[in-house]
């Protein structure tokens, strides 16, 4: 569990800091596989339940979503660079501060040992996903940020031991998949009408 958590955290940092889109998508897929292992490590519940959840996680997070994102990158012929409003140095500093804040928050809430590491790593991923969504200029990077945020919440939930019935868990995956799918479709449409994918330039609606 601890190894997986630390690997997830490192992959998350790579996604948040890297300037290249394709490696970021690969790291995202790797995160999906690691998250798919989590249900098997949880002690509770029958084996078929863990298998169902693990398979659903891998199918959605490391196959379907990376596929949609890669296709978007290929078809939209967007450059490899994923521009950010912040420099890499600032990003690393900010994420370091957020990691620290996450650990402090989890300690203050009396989570202990393994729980604390998982929960704090989950919060860190959540923060860095949010940071990506707000500071990246390309639509694809914003979607990647959203998936990192979701992964963070997933890890946080797994660490704090929350479980729901299987239909609900599958519903959660379905929602995530449809959300990314719709964002993918919208990216194509935005590309066609605006002829660019720079979110900075999309602001005709304002007060």
């Amino acid at each position: 569990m601890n190894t997986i958590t630390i690997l997830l955290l490192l992959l998350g940092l790579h996604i948040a800091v890297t300037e290249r889109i394709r490696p970021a998508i690969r790291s995202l897929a790797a995160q999906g596989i690691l998250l798919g292992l989590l249900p098997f490590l949880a002690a509770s519940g029958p084996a078929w339940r863990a298998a169902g959840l693990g398979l659903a996680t891998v199918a959605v997070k490391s196959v379907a979503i990376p596929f949609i994102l890669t296709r978007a990158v290929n078809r939209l012929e967007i450059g490899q660079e994923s521009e950010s409003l912040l420099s890499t140095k600032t990003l690393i500093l900010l994420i370091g501060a957020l990691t620290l804040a996450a650990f402090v928050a989890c300690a203050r809430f009396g989570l202990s040992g393994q729980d604390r590491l998982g929960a704090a790593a989950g919060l860190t991923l959540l923060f860095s996903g949010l940071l990506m969504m707000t500071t990246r200029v390309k639509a694809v990077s914003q979607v990647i940020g959203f998936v990192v945020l979701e992964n963070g919440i997933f890890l946080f939930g797994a660490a704090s031991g929350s479980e729901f019935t299987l239909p609900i868990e599958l519903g959660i995956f379905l929602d995530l998949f449809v959300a990314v799918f719709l964002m993918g479709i919208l990216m194509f449409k935005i590309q066609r009408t605006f002829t660019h994918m720079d979110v900075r330039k999309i602001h005709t609606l304002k007060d």
Partner: protein
Amino acid sequence: MIPLLLLAPVAGVILALLSRTPWQAALGTVVGAAGLLSGAVIQGMSPRVAAWGDLLRLDELGSYFLLIVAGVHFLCSVYAYGYFRRELEGGHIGPAKVRMYHVWTNLFVLSMVVVVCSHHLALQWVAVEATTLFSAPLIYLHGDRRGMEAAWKYLLICSVGIAFAFLGIIFLSRAAGDVPLTYTALPLAAKRLDPRFLRLAFLFFLVGYGTKMGLAPMHTWLPDAHSQAPAPSSAMLSGVLLNCALLSILRIAPAIPGAYASPLLILFGILSIAVPALLVAVQRDIKRLLAFSSIENMGIVVLGLGFGGAARPAALLHVLNHSVAKVLLFLVAGDLILRFGTQKIRQIRGILRESPLRGVLLFGGILAITGSPPFGAFWSEFGILVGGIAGGHMAVSLAYLVLLAVLFGSFLMYGSNMVFGEGVPRKLSGPELWCLLPACVLLLASLWLGLHVPAGLYKTLERLSTVVAFS
């Protein structure tokens, strides 16, 4: 009963998919909506709680919200027939897109029915997220730049908001331990739950679902999304979707200590009234104007819930009053936008002289939404003020009164310019039955709720207000 309620919108989806012409698709939606409405009325009159398994359960509070969803959906589906016929004639939209409108609208309604029928709070979360996903295609139905920008913002911001609500559910399950996360089990066990995690859960519910509800300062997506959707969809988004997000917050309220929740609700409430009060005065687009008024009205409801006491039933009544008046306004605005060919307020002028019925509907709607007597919203806004003063929140109540007066002034100015103002004479064709009939029904409903609050309704709301009271 619940399987039948779910079946009605599913039937609408199937009929829309099978349809060959836009007319058939519209008929399918109307049939599905009529089915849903009759089911909701039958369930509303029966004293028994409907349940289907552990996950779905429809109590009196859910029934109240379901009736609003079903009523608005029915009127909007009738309106949509007339609206899209005109859009098709004008060549603004193709038949394939009209069919997609009906498919997505029925799916959207289906997800809202699941929201109000959810017994398990995590299922409710899944359904609220589904409402975002099914309504996003409606926002970019026309496929223009503004629609896409609005849909992109809507998907991204609401998905983040809803992710925060999910964090709230994780905190709640941490607090609950082995207590099931259902709205019947949690309040009973409230005393045994870990208060720290319970508070965090409420905070994240409020921020997460509050984003979906359009509470300031998380409201930034709302004016864009609600102004870019086609008129019947705008009406549904403002008139019922916001209520569904509110219901999701109400469901955990009984497990939360009031001393913690009330100040938060009052803060978000007054902020959500203040932001529109400042921004409404500079609006140029009629639908954005109405969208800002939705933020304000959700603020009023949340403020009333925060005040507690006598303000709580008034807040629940305001949910209904807002839906009636806001749907009315969006439907009339959609008709006017098609007639005048613009959404700009300054170019819509002199309605009364050209078409008295539309003038009466628009001006009546504006009076209704600002809470002027003799319309229903007057009583609910007044009840919230009384509750605030009785609860000892003098300063906030005063601010609430001043902000409402400012909003009333702005809306009256826009309304009188559009209805009575002199403009370029423009020939408006005769009344379009399918578009104006639902609006007339809503104006009469608002008037009826104002002239005489039905005794049965008031008793029900008093009962419901104890259901949503904080512990």
